């Protein structure tokens, strides 16, 4: 059902259909994906069509088509070097920082092509925040780590407003109780897991629509990882989350949708439960069952 709904949305007047849509699952219709999250909205957040990306002469992404839905967690999985992080960084144009990169295709958000030269990447990153693999708080105080970006974007004008926003962001990131008495201490003095939650708080402080997470737990211990996973589950009420993970179990635990990348291609994009119980493609099945990866 889900499939058709989305397809029909795609075919609304003025929105030309662009080839295979919701799930570019190769053997498409057998075994309709069952959404685990029936109540969640299925508004489109980011639409990607025919995305190709080259690092110099080396093609890192090949014809990727994907739809990212609001208020869901979408996990990108695949073996190392498959392009999942590269793809993630296309969504907020972090690849712009790499000089030899060439991008073709459409990444559309809110009706706008994010790669359009008229799109300011700062405006994009205001709406698409990012959390990195290694916790990278600014070498400033905990408070300043959160307050810096909202102040820069003129989201707060008074000190009280700023204090409130810092508290809210830290609460949303589940860090408030641990740090409320030491807001002036450097962010780098926290433990790894706390630092990563601080980075999440920093990202949500500017109230983005989408949060990109690039293997957010790969540098963390299992307990911190569990905390972050719970947090992702909570945060999807407010934000759309796209996460890259090396850990398939994590994808199975936290994601509503899972995309499997291999050698720069999106092999399968499916409802997570389907992906792990009944993958449509041989490659995905082999990867998930641990035959390679």
């Amino acid at each position, binding site marked *: 059902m889900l499939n058709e709904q989305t397809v029909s949305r795609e075919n609304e007047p003025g929105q030309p259909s662009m080839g295979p849509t919701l799930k570019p699952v190769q053997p498409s219709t057998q075994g309709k994906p069952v959404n685990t999250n029936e109540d969640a909205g299925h508004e489109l957040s980011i639409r990607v069509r025919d995305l190709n990306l080259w690092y110099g002469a080396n093609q890192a992404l090949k014809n990727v088509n994907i739809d990212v839905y609001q208020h869901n967690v979408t996990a990108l999985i695949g073996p190392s070097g498959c392009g999942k992080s590269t793809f993630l960084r296309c969504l*907020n144009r972090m690849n712009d920082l790499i000089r030899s990169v060439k991008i073709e295709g459409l990444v559309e958000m809110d009706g706008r092509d994010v790669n359009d030269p008229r799109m300011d990447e700062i405006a994009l*990153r205001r709406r698409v925040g*990012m959390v*990195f693999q290694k916790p*990278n708080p*600014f070498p400033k105080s905990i408070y300043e780590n959160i307050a810096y970006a909202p102040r*820069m974007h003129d989201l707060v004008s008074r000190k009280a407003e700023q204090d409130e926003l810092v508290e809210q962001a830290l609460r949303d990131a589940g860090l408030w109780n641990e740090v409320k008495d030491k807001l002036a201490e450097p962010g*780098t003095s926290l433990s790894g897991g706390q630092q990563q939650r601080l980075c999440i708080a920093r990202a949500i402080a500017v109230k983005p629509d989408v949060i990109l997470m690039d293997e957010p737990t790969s540098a963390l211990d299992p307990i911190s990882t569990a905390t972050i996973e719970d947090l992702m589950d909570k945060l999807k009420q407010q934000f759309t989350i796209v996460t890259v993970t090396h850990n398939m179990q994590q994808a199975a635990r936290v994601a509503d949708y899972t995309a499997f990348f291999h050698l720069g291609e999106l092999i399968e994009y499916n409802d997570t439960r389907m992906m792990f119980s009944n993958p449509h493609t041989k490659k995905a099945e082999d990867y998930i069952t641990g035959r390679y990866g």
Partner: protein
Amino acid sequence: MSQSFDEITAQLKRRHRKTARLKWLSMGALALAATFLVVFISDMLVKGLPAFQQAQIQVEVTYSEQSQQMPPAAVNEDVRRLVSRGFLRTLPMRMRDNPDLMGTTRMEWVLADSAVDQYLKGHHTRLKDDQKSIVDDLLAKGQVELKFNTRFFTAGDSKMPELAGIASAAMGTVMTLIVTMLVCFPIGVMTAVYLEEFATDNWLTQVIEININNLAAVPSILFGLLGLAIYINFFGVPRSTPLVGGLTLALMTLPVIIIATRTALRSVPDTIRQAAFGVGCSRWQVVRDHVLPLSFPGILTGSIIGLAQAMGETAPLIIIGMVAFIPDVSASFSDAATVMPAQIFTWAGEPDRAFTEKTAGGILVLLVVLISLNATAVWMRKKFERRW
């Protein structure tokens, strides 16, 4: 059957011997270098420390009409040649400034001639035998003695060694370095920021980079020629002044600061830049709010070391005329000045033996200033260093 431990140990002996030999060789090299350093410093101390002491002599000074006309008459004939001519020359002025002195005679400690000074310090001296015996006599009576040489730190250059001091050169150095710093710190840091954070990697930036690295290795005297040709001959900046000296040294220090700043910028982890870009910083905000504060200690250290290098520079300044004879301490950027190394160079060329210790004394002062500058650099790096 594999080899036993004993067999393997026997084979290893030669390898261990080689390690030991290498260890002793490298320790020997270190010891040699340390010896050179110790010899150099102790030689400077032995030669230079006496410069901080100066012979003074207690004589009867008669303030009269006659000594107003002919200052040497103020002092008894026996000791006249033992007193510094520089002191005698100032007598009329002192009497003019202080009319009460007229008609009095008083015992005063006055500056002794450099010949007396050298005699007391056991060096070769111009003193004749009878003068020597007078000095010995006075010495026994406690009327000649070596006192701390304040003049050395407060006076400018002089042709009379007992009057010569390093103050004008020190002032010249300070003013020259102020000009150098004002010019090359902002330009150098901005250039490095551009090259490191903004410029794309193309042939033009590569050419610039190679040239900057080469510039740092250009013999400094060429910068003097450049300064002479451009600043003095083309722009008409007055020669011998701290202004032109500072501008010339800035040319020389610029590549050092650029290279140090680039290294400091590069040492800021990319994760910080990504974090900043990730929250929507513009490039300028990334640099101003994150990269520069983190690299500041490194930039500061590099700049201070570049400055210290500029401070010890002599050759380019000789070309633009900063070896002038500067008897007065001046405080203007457009008056002729000299700098400490140039002053040392001048003194080293003086025929009077008494200048030898001035030379070494000047080197000691320069070394102390350089070491304190470098220590400041280390201290600042420690103080501002932030961990992440």
